[in-house]
């Protein structure tokens, strides 16, 4: 394969597509599929054929605004239809060449206007099971450019120049990581993609793997070239069967096209990828635990250093990046580091995909330039809190993150700003809470999550999260005391500072951030045995009061 051949494929696809007058793209992502997108697509295909019009019906990955699904986009007019039912298929097919179906059209201009699509540039435009679709949109161009025109060092330099930081949560500079692995000695090195998207309330990586799998593969191949690896692993949650299937297809197609395997594109570069299934352990998102799991062992983390960059899989230098990080690589190589560097805020470059969910009108997948204000996400893109309720907080960063209160909506979204606010960027879950959520209960939910997901290796995380959960349960059921609260805070400090890995070190975040901004809710529970949001049952409180009364009697 050469650049010319690649362009030839793209041309063929375009030629093929030009045979059609219309393209009807049907979103087949989980949210749309669960609302009958499959039946809808079948109906569209059937009716299109019957109509005699030249229509290409294409199934695509996530288009974004899931709450408006099932979504259909008709090109070349770029008309977006929302909440389309099987019964609407006829109207849509009939409208081709005529006026759009007004009652199905949705006004999501504001929703899309604020977004910038880099990672999701192909989402909703290509059939994820067709490599040629990807190639027709500049797919694998970056890999070929890297292999034929750039040195490995040059690639590392370009990534460094872009200012890209790890999208998995930590925000470690990607170029720096690549440089370390590239410099590490050893002839066997590995490239690993962390697709163990474990944060509850986050589905960015799933959507990318399902909607544009080649983008991830291309990013990994470029990384492998840059660091000198010949073998890669994609570690995906077993809970994502569609992602696994799409990646499997994509790998097969890429091999068939000679974009993976030995002597890629007539160069001496060899690289292939294997998929490894996770098995339901959140802690495997931690890189040393993930490596243990790939090696077929219990996913327990190891103390770092040594870092995986020096001693990773089977003791070899290993580069680990998250799905979204790899998804950013091809456009950076294609468009240059400066192009990426010019997007975003001062120390957080580029765009970030978020899964916007919870008590908000437009739920779904969004991609925004970093530095964007929270209110722009909530009020403009998200369309605000529905049902006349009041925004209370935004939870970011999953179980390791924190809650940002409603009065901080002017905060710009960046790694550092979120950290300063007591939360973290995390992998990109953004859960909106309104006045129906009890923040103590929310903190307890996350601590319970960390408790059940703790691997159990180190004491502070294993026993500490369990104790935090006990103390929070006391507060939630009305038996908590001020001593319990004090102990909880002290415990948070120890768990944070002494735990072996990130899971334990960040487990107290939801407690600490809710305590920082919503301490009055804790005090209400403890002093007045009252849950302001009316969520906690306070079942323990009356009994406690009786016991006290008995003593006084």
């Amino acid at each position, binding site marked *: 394969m050469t650049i010319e051949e690649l362009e030839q494929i793209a041309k063929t696809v375009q030629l093929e597509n030009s045979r059609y007058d219309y393209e009807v793209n049907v979103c087949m992502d989980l949210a749309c599929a669960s609302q009958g997108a499959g039946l809808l697509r079948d109906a569209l295909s059937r009716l299109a054929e019957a109509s005699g019009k030249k229509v290409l019906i294409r199934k695509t990955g996530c288009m974004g605004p899931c709450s408006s699904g099932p979504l259909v986009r008709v090109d070349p007019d770029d008309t977006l239809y929302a909440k389309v039912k099987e019964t609407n298929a006829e109207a849509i097919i009939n409208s081709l060449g005529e006026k759009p179906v007004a009652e199905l059209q949705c006004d999501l201009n504001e929703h899309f206007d604020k977004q910038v699509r880099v990672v999701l540039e192909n989402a909703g435009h290509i059939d994820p099971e067709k490599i040629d679709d990807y190639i027709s949109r500049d797919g694998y161009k970056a890999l070929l450019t890297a292999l034929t025109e750039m040195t490995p060092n040059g690639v590392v330099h370009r990534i460094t120049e872009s200012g890209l930081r790890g999208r998995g949560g930590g925000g470690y500079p990607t170029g720096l990581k690549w440089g370390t692995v590239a410099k590490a000695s050893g002839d066997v090195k590995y490239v690993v993609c962390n697709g163990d998207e474990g944060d509850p309330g986050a589905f960015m990586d799933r959507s990318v793997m399902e909607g544009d799998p080649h983008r991830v593969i291309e990013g990994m191949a470029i990384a492998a070239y840059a660091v000198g690896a010949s073998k890669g692993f994609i570690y995906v949650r077993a809970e994502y069967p569609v992602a696994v299937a799409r990646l499997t297809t994509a790998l097969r197609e890429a091999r068939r096209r000679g974009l993976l395997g030995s002597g890629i594109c007539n160069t001496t570069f060899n690289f292939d990828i294997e998929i490894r299934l996770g098995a339901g*352990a959140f*802690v495997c998102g931690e890189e040393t635990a993930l490596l243990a799991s790939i090696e077929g062992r*219990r996913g327990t983390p*190891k*103390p770092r*250093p040594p870092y995986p960059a020096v001693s990773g899989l089977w003791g070899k230098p290993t580069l680990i990046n998250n799905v979204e990080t790899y998804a950013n690589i091809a456009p950076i190589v294609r468009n240059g580091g400066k192009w990426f560097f010019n997007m975003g805020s001062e120390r957080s470059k580029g765009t970030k995909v978020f899964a916007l969910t919870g008590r908000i009108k437009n739920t779904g997948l969004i991609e925004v330039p970093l530095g964007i204000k929270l209110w722009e996400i909530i009020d403009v893109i998200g369309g605000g809190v529905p049902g006349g309720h009041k925004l209370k907080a935004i939870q970011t960063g999953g179980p390791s993150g924190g809650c940002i209160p409603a009065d901080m909506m002017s905060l710009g979204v960046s790694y550092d700003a979120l950290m300063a606010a007591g939360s973290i960027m995390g992998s990109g879950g953004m859960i909106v809470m309104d006045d129906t959520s009890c923040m103590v209960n929310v903190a307890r939910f996350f601590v319970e999550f960390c*408790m*059940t*997901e*703790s*691997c*159990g*290796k*180190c*004491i*502070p995380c*294993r*026993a*500490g*999260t*369990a*104790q935090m959960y*006990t*103390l929070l349960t006391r507060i939630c059921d009305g038996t908590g005391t001020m001593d319990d609260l004090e*102990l909880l805070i*002290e*415990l948070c400090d*120890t768990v944070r*500072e*002494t*735990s*072996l890995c990130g899971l334990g070190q960040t487990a107290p975040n939801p407690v600490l951030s809710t305590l920082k901004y919503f301490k009055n809710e804790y005090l209400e529970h403890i002093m007045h045995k009252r849950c302001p949001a009316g969520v906690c049952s306070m079942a323990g409180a009356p009994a406690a009061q009786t016991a006290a009364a008995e003593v006084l009697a």
Partner: protein
Amino acid sequence: MTEAPFDVKTLEIDGRELSARRGQTILEVARENDINIPTLCNMEGLSNVGACRLCLVEIKGSNKLLPACVATVSEGMVVSTNTERLQKHRRNILELLFAERNHVCSVCVSNGHCELQSMAQDQGLTHVRMPYRNPHLPVDASHERFTVDHNRCILCTRCVRVCGEIEGAHVWDVMGRGIDSMVITDLHEDWGKSTCTRCGKCVQVCPTGALFDKSKIGSDHPKYPDFLPYLNLMREAR
């Protein structure tokens, strides 16, 4: 000039200027110089897992605490092993251990010879503020010579490591995860029916009364793990 010759590093531990060989851990250097850093999962002769977090030390210029058992020395490192911050964390970790399972010293075979018990005393622990969890845990006395009482296990995994790394049998491992973790023999089968080689090394390295010799119930039950460094030495010599 920053590197000392002959791979010798100079560092400071608790205000004392010390020298060390490159690649040595902070714990090794401290022990060579009679500086006590508390540990529970560490044992000379076994691999280090850095799990108990009691050996965490402070390094000047870094806010992050490092486990002395795995962190290696570097030139000019300034280490503090016993600051107030570390003492507080150590007490909290010990409290967590005491509250996690059912450690009843007065009825334990290891009373007076228990590393957890003496460490609590060393660290000035007189009571446990954390609520006791009181889990219902089994005692497996199916083995003809030994018993495992899970109520007293602190999951340090010394038994797992000595069985896998030294005896080479790997009869022990950990099942479950988080607070539900438990050491097991084979497929969570009775120890007595397992593939155990009956060497008894696990009993000797167990820091508490979780693993004990049946013939010594109700009597003084000290453990003798000193065979470990010797065994390793003899193996290396071969």
